[in-house]
């Protein structure tokens, strides 16, 4: 079995019905799986699931078609030369990977980033790039 982390960030939700997509998509594959963790918050819905190894690829792909972010980490880089520490990206980040440090400068926590890319177009300086 393989553990995958599915995330449906709030900013990608067009309709509240979309929340049922995570589970419905997995159910389509006619398998038994364990839900290890299910959480909802103001930033979106998060699901940690344990699925059969041979189905990982098909399940991951069908989830991705519905804007669900699967198992992604650190997919953006910040260009410090262009960044002006305004914070316009921070409210878009569903995992607190972007935030201001004590000096009010923008800090990016690679390990928290799930690669939803919501921050990309929110940057008025084009300082955030997809890796």
């Amino acid at each position, binding site marked *: 079995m393989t553990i995958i982390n599915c995330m449906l960030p*709030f*900013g990608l*939700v*067009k*309709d*509240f019905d979309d929340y049922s997509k995570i589970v419905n998509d997995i159910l389509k594959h006619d398998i038994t799986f364990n839900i290890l963790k299910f959480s909802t*918050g*103001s*930033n979106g819905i998060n699901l940690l699931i344990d699925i059969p190894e041979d189905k990982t690829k098909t399940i991951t792909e069908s989830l991705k078609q519905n804007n669900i972010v699967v198992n992604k980490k650190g997919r953006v880089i910040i260009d410090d030369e262009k960044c*002006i*520490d*305004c*914070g*316009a*990206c*921070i*409210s*878009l*980040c569903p995992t607190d990977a972007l*935030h*201001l440090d004590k*000096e*009010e*400068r923008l800090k990016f926590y690679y390990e928290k980033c799930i690669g939803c890319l919501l921050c990309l*177009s*929110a940057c*008025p*300086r*084009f300082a955030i790039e997809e890796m």
Partner: protein
Amino acid sequence: MTKTYNEINEKIKNGDVVVVTAEQMINIVEDQGIKVAAEEIDVVTTGTFGPMCSSGAFLNFGHADPPIKFEHLWLNDVQAYHGNAAVDCYIGCTRLSDVKRFKYGGGHVIEDLVAGKPIRLRGNSYTTDCYPLAEIDTEFTLDEINQAILLNPRNAYQRYVCAVNSSDRTLYTHLGKLLPHFGNAHYAGAGCLSPLSNDPDYETIGIGTRIFLGGGIGYIIGEGTQHSPTNQFGTLFVKGDLKQMSPEYLRGVSYEQYGTSLFVGLGIPIPILNEGLAKKTAISDAELFTDIVDYGIPRRDRPKPRRINYEELKGEYIELNGKKVKCSSLSSFYHARKIAETLKEWIQDGKFYLNPPAETLPTDTVFKPMKQTTKIKFVKDLKRNAIICHDDCDLKTIAEKIIDQNLNHIIITDLENTLKGIVTSFDVTKAIARDKTDLNDIITKKVITTTDNEPIDVATRKMKLNNISALPVIDELNKVTGLITSEELI
């Protein structure tokens, strides 16, 4: 205790002036009291660094040979305003590039100019006897032109609102990207460092006040446009020499699907002439309030769910309708602090003296709305009767109604007239082509709708954004009251 400008300037000259930032002043007043602070502190510096759309620059290029009198001109493909003498122009920061559109605008031209980069100048003319040159295509840098004057009619808002979005789609606004269903919140303004918030009665601020502007020295030349002091939305009209400024404090920015602007760094020194000013400059984020405004309602008077102070705004999450909403700033507090610190150093080093304003800013002007001579039209004024089928009907009934009524859109409701979906003549055609017979196979259930009191332009924009040609009109109970199609809008 009172102090004069002359006494403070004498201290600057002697090198024993005591300057602190407005952020540091909070603790000083708290620890030592207003009386001691007023005696010991001579100047409090402020700062702000955020997008200020009413910014731009006057440039003078000198004369060409043969001379040209511009009719139209472009700087790096951004059109500049020409309505002055032959070779003067005004480049406004929100003007978009004809070529790069949202990615580059007048604000970026100003940043590039100050950074010393060459700027391409293209222009044309209808020609006159004294200005015979019809076209020019050349390049210049900041050093090569005569005057380059930053002239911003509205800067340094005393405070700004916090924007949220109650609607069901992402909005792209002058306050950034706002997620649906109150998904996030954006605010602007430096809070406790905000220049006008530290002298809210404008005792020391007015025409002629010397300030930090874009990394150089600038001047306040009056109240800004839309100056609204009675509700703490004062603004400033400022000018300064671009040739002294730095690209660190003038940054071109692009807001997705909204447009371009210019981040302007601005700081004002406030002389502590009396105890009242010591108290005012000690204002904290917790004491500075603004409104949360719902941009989901596209009207001039938008709903304001509640008041909020800058302390809560700066805390990354705000509380709204019992929910935690992620909140961030659009202006940089890091740079605001740096501006206040830089201004402090300039004064301590004797490079910057304070002066009384020739006239202080008005405290009673009112920000009026636009006078509109044509009445705005609402959906209720133009809607037509919707042709309705119930959700248990067959496709033949729908097809017959389309033909009988000569209409492309049939609204599907339940027996209580509640909206269930929409079917178009194209959907029916598709059903025949693909051998579908059930209404459920072709109905669109997620319908974009409008209401009686929505302005026509808002409904039109919904159709344009969603690439559709009709909107069912519903009431607050989701009951259908009519239909509006692109035909009514023509």
